């Protein structure tokens, strides 16, 4: 290959690499600024967020937040100066390009004159050495600068690629999507709008596509915590303020035994997160489509009726998506006494009131992630139900989600389906549906009800039709009669009461 062309290619590559590094640093700064805003917010709200703490603990936490703010500001300044250094490198590389071209021209000129000189008897000098020197000089300088660049920025790049806000996530190959999670990607930060109150919104195309698994792996399961965060052994909890639409932002805590709850959870029915609707479907475990879904689970931090910690989440998101991860973290902390950094980011598209999903990142501090380390995106979906994320309206698949029709048809569908499954005959279903629909006020509702009922009876695994289930003294599941988990204790309870008391269906007997 032509050495000049090779040199040109190498320089082009180096400049491209520098541009990439600058881009990543800028994204990192964006992420840091979001974090800074969160911290400044939580600094104002330390008293509110920690009202059950003792006064001394409140003061300690205030100081912790202050320290973290200082660290984040320092990181922003460092990143900005690194960007400046990289831009200087780029500029000098460009200058060297010019110098290289000039050097080449000079070299060629010298060679020509030498050749002419030799031809006319001139002894000439060995200008190839000069050429080599010129090129060598450029190379050495470039190499030195590259080395410096790599030295100063390698850590930053590696930390940048594992850091930043939820949008900056690497792509990985898609895997089998039946049981295991897929690696996925959010688009670059250019598609993220960061509102002043730090709610994370993305473009619709950035949101991962649901394909049967309750969650997908993000960034090869590497969370985006900073190196200083990963060393933090101080308990803290930060909850973003709600934005102008009442939507939650990032919730970030250092989970440890100190902040885990010691009392049983109380009712949270008074909280209505953004996009909240009360709607039931037979195809939903527990019937209610939506739960008041904790960002940081109650079992981890004891936050219950905190509006900044609750989103409108489907039953599927709550139980199939988020709960397994919360369980893993909670049991790890109970067993080891270690700290686990735990951050949950609800992801909204545009002005939608219901989150499309949540990103959960976790990292165990004392063992540097050997115990707990993950970065996942959990889908806020409900199989069999179509959700309008703009306002939380919903309908069974195949129908258009509208608030009024959905509610009316849901109520009548629920009654019809319950009766039909009791009788367990298609004729009964038809008759019951007809009765239900004659009560409905519109033709459109009638049709909707009929279709919905048919679907529900055909496809739905129905909860015990008698409305009676069984719970134990210690578990948090409800069971069918005869389930093996009822050996030690067995208490009869109505299905509605079980759901109201936040029991969930047993995965073994599947009531």
């Amino acid at each position, binding site marked *: 290959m032509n050495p000049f062309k090779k040199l040109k290619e190498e320089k082009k590559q180096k400049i491209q690499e520098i541009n990439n590094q600058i881009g990543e640093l800028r994204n990192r700064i964006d992420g840091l600024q979001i974090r800074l805003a969160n911290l400044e917010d939580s600094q104002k709200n330390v008293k509110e967020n920690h009202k059950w703490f003792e006064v001394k603990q409140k003061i300690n936490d205030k100081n912790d937040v202050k320290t973290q703010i200082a660290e984040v500001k320092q990181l922003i300044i460092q990143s900005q100066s690194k960007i400046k250094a990289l831009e200087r490198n780029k500029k000098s590389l460009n200058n060297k390009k010019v110098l290289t071209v000039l050097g080449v021209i000079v070299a060629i000129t010298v060679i020509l004159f030498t050749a002419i000189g030799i031809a006319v008897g001139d002894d000439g000098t060995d200008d190839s050495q000069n050429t080599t020197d010129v090129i060598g000089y450029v190379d050495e300088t470039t190499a030195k600068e590259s080395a410096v660049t790599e030295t100063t920025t390698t850590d930053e790049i590696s930390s940048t690629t594992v850091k930043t806000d939820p949008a900056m996530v690497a792509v990985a190959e898609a895997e089998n999507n039946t*049981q*295991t*999670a897929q690696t996925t990607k959010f688009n670059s930060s250019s598609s993220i709008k960061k509102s002043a109150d730090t709610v994370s919104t993305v473009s619709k195309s950035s949101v991962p596509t649901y394909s049967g698994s309750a*969650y997908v*792996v993000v960034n090869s*399961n590497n969370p985006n915590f900073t190196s200083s965060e990963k060393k933090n052994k101080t308990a803290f909890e930060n909850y973003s303020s709600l934005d102008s639409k009442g939507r939650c932002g990032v919730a970030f805590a250092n989970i440890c035994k100190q902040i885990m709850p010691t009392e049983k959870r109380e009712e949270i029915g008074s909280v209505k997160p953004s996009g909240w609707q009360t709607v039931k479907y037979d195809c939903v475990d527990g019937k209610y489509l939506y739960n008041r879904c904790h960002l940081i689970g109650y079992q981890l931090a004891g936050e219950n009726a905190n509006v900044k910690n609750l989103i409108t989440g489907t039953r599927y998101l709550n*139980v199939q998506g988020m*709960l*397994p*991860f919360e*369980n*893993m973290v909670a*049991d*790890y902390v*109970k*067993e*080891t006494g270690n700290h686990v950094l735990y951050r949950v980011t609800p992801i909204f598209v545009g002005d939608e009131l219901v989150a499309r999903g949540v990103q959960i990142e976790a990292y165990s501090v004392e063992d540097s992630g*050997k*115990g*707990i*380390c*993950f970065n*996942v995106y959990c889908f806020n979906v409900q199989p069999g139900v179509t959700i309008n994320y703009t306002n939380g309206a919903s309908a069974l698949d195949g129908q258009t989600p509208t608030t009024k029709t959905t509610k009316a048809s849901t109520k009548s569908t629920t009654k019809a389906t319950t009766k039909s499954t009791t009788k367990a005959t298609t004729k009964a279903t038809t008759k019951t549906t007809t009765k239900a629909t004659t009560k409905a006020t519109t033709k459109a509702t009638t049709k909707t009800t009929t279709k919905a009922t048919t679907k529900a009876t055909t496809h739905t695994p129905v909860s015990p039709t008698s409305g009676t289930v069984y719970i134990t003294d*210690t*578990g948090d599941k409800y069971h069918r009669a005869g389930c*093996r*988990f009822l*050996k*030690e204790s067995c208490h009869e309870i109505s299905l509605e009461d079980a759901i109201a008391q936040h029991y969930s269906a047993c*995965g*073994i007997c599947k009531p």
Partner: protein
Amino acid sequence: MKIALCVDNNGGMLFNNRRQSRDRILIEDLLNTAQGKVRISPFSADLFDESKVICSDDFLEIADENDVCFVEDCELSCFNDKISQVILYCWNRDYPSDFSTDIDLDKFKLKSSVEFVGSSHDKITKEIYIK
């Protein structure tokens, strides 16, 4: 050989190359059940006192009939013929998993089932299956 393993409600064992959970009392129970040294892979070494285990990469290959092997990160389908007993500890919890047990328990008979309270788990079920 006898195999001991820990699973969640869906038969899962690992997530992101890390165990789903751990429990000190479960390990004590396992050691009591084994009544001797337990064979393990290096992956499980941090759960045990060094003096109570034999740690090796090929622990399943070299285990003999009466050895108890604690398995966390290995596939077992190729050792089906060698396994005479399965000691299955169920966490009774839902955890995420990307690696699950591949033992076919249909080829075994449930001999006993006991529940106990762990150090960090409200209820752990220990089921013993024999061929």
